[in-house]
């Protein structure tokens, strides 16, 4: 039986939509895919003209980026320490504060909430200048504690606001039931509230970790030979080795691998975090 004209028109329309969407999609796929291709080439193949699509892929650059002369492993570990410590501290501080903002009677709640929101809007350049002078004075340049303190400036306000929006969604009846059971306030927070916002905590952890891992302005100025996160290592690599693009691509993809894995695996949570921010306001990303 032949397609009826209505159905044929719909199929045609869908085909046009898919082609248009696919072309747009390529704009975002191609640069990343090209970086992967380049990372599998030798340096001489990278500088062949015209650019080659067909070549013998090699993992040599990845070997170099991990264990070879251009190893970024130590920077990788540094980023891991910085981002994990920032995340743990942020969560420990943000969750109780968010609970109080979302659920409890708190003196001066409005101005305090507004204050938290405004701290999030300070341009990083306005903080890096005083921090450089302060950390220089107390000898915390090129130190873990120095960078972690600075990272709190953008992670904490963001985390508080993200958590507030999750806490607000918990049904009040649950807390009231806990009170009737004579649970004290700490027990209520720990046993009733926290399990309800596990999803929100996961989203917050992901965003805080990601923002800390990708941070560059503070890192490039406040880090050094001792504490050097991956973003700074990448930048230095290009400044020194202007043309070793295959090695750059491999090292950068290794440095970004945790973010790509988190991005794909936690895609739903990230979209949720983005949209909550977009509905309720706030968020540095």
């Amino acid at each position, binding site marked *: 039986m032949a397609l009826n004209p209505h159905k044929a028109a719909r199929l045609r329309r869908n085909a046009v*939509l*898919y082609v*248009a*969407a696919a072309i*747009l*999609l390529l704009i*975002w796929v*191609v*640069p*990343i895919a*090209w970086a992967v291709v*380049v990372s599998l080439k030798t340096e001489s193949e*990278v500088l062949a003209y*015209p*650019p080659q699509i067909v070549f013998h892929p090699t993992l040599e650059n990845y070997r170099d980026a991990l264990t070879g002369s251009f190893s970024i492993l130590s920077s990788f570990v540094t980023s891991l320490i910085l981002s994990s410590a920032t995340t743990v501290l942020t969560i420990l*501080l943000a969750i*109780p504060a968010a609970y*109080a903002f979302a659920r*409890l*009677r*708190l003196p001066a709640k409005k101005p305090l909430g507004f204050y938290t929101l405004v701290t999030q*809007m300070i*341009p*990083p*350049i*306005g*903080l*890096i*200048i*005083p921090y*450089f*002078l302060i950390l220089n004075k107390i000898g915390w340049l090129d130190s873990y504690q120095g960078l972690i303190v600075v990272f709190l*400036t953008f992670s*904490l*306000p963001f985390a*508080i606001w993200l958590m507030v929006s999750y806490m607000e969604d918990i049904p009040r009846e649950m807390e009231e039931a806990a009170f009737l059971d004579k649970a*004290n*306030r700490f027990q209520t927070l720990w046993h009733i509230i926290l399990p309800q916002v596990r999803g929100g905590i996961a989203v917050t952890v992901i965003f805080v970790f990601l923002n800390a891992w*990708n941070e*560059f*302005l503070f890192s490039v*100025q406040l880090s050094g030979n001792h504490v050097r996160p991956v*973003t700074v290592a*990448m*930048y230095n690599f*290009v400044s020194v080795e202007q043309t070793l*693009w295959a090695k*750059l691509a491999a090292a*950068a993809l290794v440095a*970004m691998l945790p973010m*790509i894995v988190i*991005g794909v695996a936690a*895609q739903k949570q*990230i*979209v949720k975090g*983005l949209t909550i*921010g*977009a*509905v309720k*306001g706030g968020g540095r990303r």
Partner: protein
Amino acid sequence: MKTGKGGLFQKEENFAALLVAPALLVLILTTTFPLVYLIWNSFQNINLAMPFMNSFAGFDNYVQMMSDPNFWHSLELTAIYTISSVALQVVIGLGLALLVMQIPRGQGVFRVVAILPIVLAPVVVGLFWRTLMLAPNFGLIDFAVKALGLGAVNWLGAPTPALISVIMIHTWQWTPFAFLVFLASLASLPVDVYEAARIDRANAVKRFIHITLPLIRPALVIVMIMRSMIALSAFAAIFAATRGGPGTATEILNLYAYRTSFVELNFGYGSALAVALLVITLAVSSVLFAMRTARVR
């Protein structure tokens, strides 16, 4: 209520104060205290290259700023960079979201692809574009443009193309953010409104202007706020791609304040420039927030 039972922190206000105190204390120490120090510094002459010249400057730094052509130039670039990149992100992001909403299957692929640019570090994005995409001859885009016979463009080496390039890089990285937010926002719209409109024989354009646009207005404004804040403070991708160059062709205020402080070591004037950016950021966000709460029509 349950006040007065089981110790001091059973009283709600006390308990709440106890919970917010650590976070607020950390915020005051890590953000407000440095900020006060920044403002204080903006009234000083602080030059790390000439520490013996350090002194109180009063409003000198701000007076200097008003007659500094570099400042006005960087301000103009900041406006161009922010307005054009935010406008592009919103228009392309919304267009793509409307398109993908029409697709019966495979929306998931778009969501995954859209996540990738967002999770990459801006400095890596800037480095990739500077080398793999835009480098003369060997960069993919430069090669493609030449192969198509569109002529040679000095992407990052000539002033106007460099400015367009850094705007393009920023737009490339952050349009997926707008796209994802709009997609979620469109997906949450009530279907019955559309059906009523369809029965009324409203065409697609009319439906978009009179139904979709007002409904997604909150998301639209919030995306504009968030993206403007980020664009005003954009640093890593520009720094990696052009370092503000050639000359000062891509040196937005943020990068100018950085260079003044950390390259010329003039921390007093650099602080004043950073205060200017702070004031602009707060002004822009309050205007946009006013738009958000303003009543429609």
